[in-house]
């Protein structure tokens, strides 16, 4: 067990996550702000991490082999000629069971750091998290129209990809009405819409809807539908949504202006109409930009502008746009009319997040979406940009601190902190941890 009170596996997972932000392990440990006091009880691992991994790999191989043997034996015993398809199906079933076993092993052997555990959240936050998880997994039946707002600094594509991953995992009929892509994965029903009239798009959507399954229609840019007077977007959306178990996810790029026709000049602007109709609004932002905005707020500075709003001619996209993982400001609207707002963080998904069965993969193993305030990088403000020109006095002395010096300086417990300890401090004693370069001078102590 490491000194932090968490098991090695937990720490390894934690480090893997922080490393994905480019944070070193030392920084990550600092950011955790490990509380002093009794060490949190945790399962002590009887084996090292490497042994655990080997064990897991061995188990996996065994299961796979057993499954294959079993399927073959069944095949011989029943004297049936199994088609390849059936064989794969059986194998998949076994693999799924095996994945469950693997998870239970993992659950026993390693614990997740409390930062990632939902049960420590207050009730409302937990409710919001559950809402978002439902929206993401497309399981919220009353969520008919999800409006996704994005801009050039954070594209909504990773979010759409996430919807598609989860939808396909649940065997939902995914229909992509695309004005921006020219091809997609063959498991998605693809409608390339940018040259089609509205009624033709509608016809194709109706053709793609499967009445026996849940359908989700993704529209990767609503602009072409909104522009021009030939489409009534309200009518368009509601005529899709009248199908049973069919919902719409539409993307609106916030920085693309819409040319209003003379008749539209008297109507509410398109975005207002969409926002009015939406049951959930998800606005995408880049994590790096959110963190730098927070850093500026914390210092009561003006929040930096990025991308097209930068005061630089010719800049299209801000640096740090489309960061690895995105922040989503969500607004949920209940039937009662009340709305709740919350910010979330979603990292990029990996294949290992999903069960391997299914086409092209199975269901999500464990929800990895977290509240933004739980995100360590956001908490610690690690991407905080340094002020570019810190005025430093001209001097021959080096007034700066190295990383090591700063760490040590922050580690010093000042006497008045110690005195506030409820158990009573150690009086006025100077608290000093001996470094390795210090040598204990007995004579001086005796004076």
């Amino acid at each position, binding site marked *: 067990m490491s000194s932090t009170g968490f098991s090695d596996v937990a720490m390894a997972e934690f480090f893997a996550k922080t490393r994905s932000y480019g944070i070193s392990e030392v920084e990550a440990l600092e950011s955790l702000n490990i509380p002093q006091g009794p060490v949190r009880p945790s399962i002590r691992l009887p084996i090292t991490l490497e042994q655990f991994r080997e064990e897991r790999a061995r188990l996996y191989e065994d299961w796979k082999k057993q499954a294959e043997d079993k399927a073959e034996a069944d095949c011989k015993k029943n004297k049936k000629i199994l088609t390849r398809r059936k064989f794969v199906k059986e194998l998949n079933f076994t693999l799924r069971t095996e994945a469950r076993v693997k998870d239970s092993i993992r659950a026993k052997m390693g614990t997740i750091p409390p930062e990632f555990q939902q049960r420590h959240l207050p009730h409302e936050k937990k409710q919001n998290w559950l809402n978002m998880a439902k929206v993401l997994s497309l399981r919220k039946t009353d969520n008919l129209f999800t409006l996704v707002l994005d801009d*050039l600094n954070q594209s909504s594509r990773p979010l759409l990809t996430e919807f598609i991953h989860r939808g396909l995992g649940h065997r939902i009929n995914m229909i992509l009405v695309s004005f921006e892509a020219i091809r997609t994965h063959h498991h998605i029903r693809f409608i390339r819409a*940018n040259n089609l009239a509205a009624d033709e798009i509608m016809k194709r959507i109706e053709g793609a809807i499967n009445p026996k399954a849940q359908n989700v229609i993704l529209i990767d840019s609503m602009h072409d539908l909104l*522009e021009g007077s030939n489409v009534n977007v309200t009518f368009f959306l509601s005529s899709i949504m009248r199908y049973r178990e069919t919902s719409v996810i539409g993307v609106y790029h916030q920085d693309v*202006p*819409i040319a209003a026709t003379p008749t539209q000049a008297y109507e509410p602007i398109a975005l207002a109409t969409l926002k009015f109709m939406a049951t959930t609004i998800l606005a995408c932002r880049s994590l790096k930009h959110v963190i730098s905005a927070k850093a500026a707020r914390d210092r009561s500075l003006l929040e930096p502008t990025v991308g097209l709003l930068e005061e630089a*001619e*010719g800049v*299209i996209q801000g*640096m740090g746009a489309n960061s690895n993982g995105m922040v989503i400001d969500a607004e949920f609207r209940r039937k009662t009319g009340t709305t709740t707002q919350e910010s979330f963080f979603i990292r990029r998904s990996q294949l290992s997040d999903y069960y391997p069965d299914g086409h092209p993969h199975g269901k999500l193993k464990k929800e990895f979406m977290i509240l933004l305030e739980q995100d360590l990088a956001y908490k610690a403000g690690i991407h905080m940009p340094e002020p570019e020109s810190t005025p430093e006095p001209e001097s021959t002395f080096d007034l700066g601190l190295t990383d090591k010096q700063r760490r040590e300086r922050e580690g010093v417990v000042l006497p008045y902190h110690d005195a506030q300890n409820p158990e009573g401090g150690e009086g006025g004693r100077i608290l000093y941890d001996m470094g390795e370069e210090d040598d204990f001078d007995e004579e001086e102590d005796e004076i």
Partner: protein
Amino acid sequence: MPPSSRISPLLQPYTHLPDRESFILLTEVLGASANWLVIRFLIDALSIPGDGEKQEEAEVKVILVSWLRDWEFWRSEGRKAGGLDLLRLSQEKRFAFVDGLSKLYLPPMPEAPAHTQPPTVPSQTRTQQTTLPVRGSRIINPRAPPGTSPNLTASPTASIPPPSAPRASPTQQQQQQQQQPHFSLTTPTLAHLKETILSAIAHLTSAAPTSAKILLILDSPDTLLALSSTTSAPPMPTAQTPAPLTPSTLCSTLLDLWTLPNIHTLLPIIHADTPLVSALPSNTSPHPPTPLETASTAFLTRLAHIADRTMSCRLLDTGVARDVSGVLRVTVREKGGVSDEAGFWTEGEELGMGEDEGVGGVREGELLYFVGGDGGVRVFERGAGSGEA
């Protein structure tokens, strides 16, 4: 000088053609033109592959559509800055030029005597012969606005050729093919643009139809928006009339061009000066934007949403410097390590990318560049001003 040494190693990953089909957006502003970058793309695509190992790779061909600059400009730039003989390359069917400037609104003019000579000259001496007259004509031609032509002012309506006869007479066309093997746009309609590019593709791939990868460079297609009078009119799409030229139709035409056979990478160059992006919805100016402002902003932002990679040239933020021409910012859309097969937007792609890398292993970043008088370009990182190219 071998062509590859003309591209700085810092720039190399950005100008190299990505492995998978992609959409790269270049933007420029008035003081910081992206021509040098286009030349670098040309060098990378058209440099002769090595003898041994690169032979099995598909040959890269280039179609350059230019609305603001003519053939002579690109030819001399290509030779001066890139060491490329575009004329020879186009005879070898590796390069095709589509002229969107000289015949778009003007009637076919009688060519200058210097231009009509080359067909009669034997091919060995042709390159030498054309060198001198070209220098002279280059100074006059590219910068002269169409309005200065006496023909246009005399009869503005008659000067536009009818759409039914997009080309000049066959003999004249043949002559053109011989002296400058390129294509011309004669009407500013999207259907004609697509047709012309299709015929350019057919011309390039007539020898080996399947294997070629084509890089399609579109120099300032946003000019079309400014030229068309329909941007302000409400679109009335019916089956018969051609689609009006709006940002959305222009955008979807570009997407259509991307889906044409053999087109591998689409590389539009768009102007991003402040007046052209001033119609942002977040902009709370007391004056409502003009239709043209809205159209150009919408076109640029739409393309930027589609683009896999955006490369924008701009001036130095801190003012003019003697040894820096501008800043090149490269941003990528798809970042992060999706290690599975499901990129979902392109079939069967395998992305094994690092943390900050985008498609094709490209990292976002900012580079400074300096375009010398001889066309040579030094590219360096911030703070490394005196670094070597």
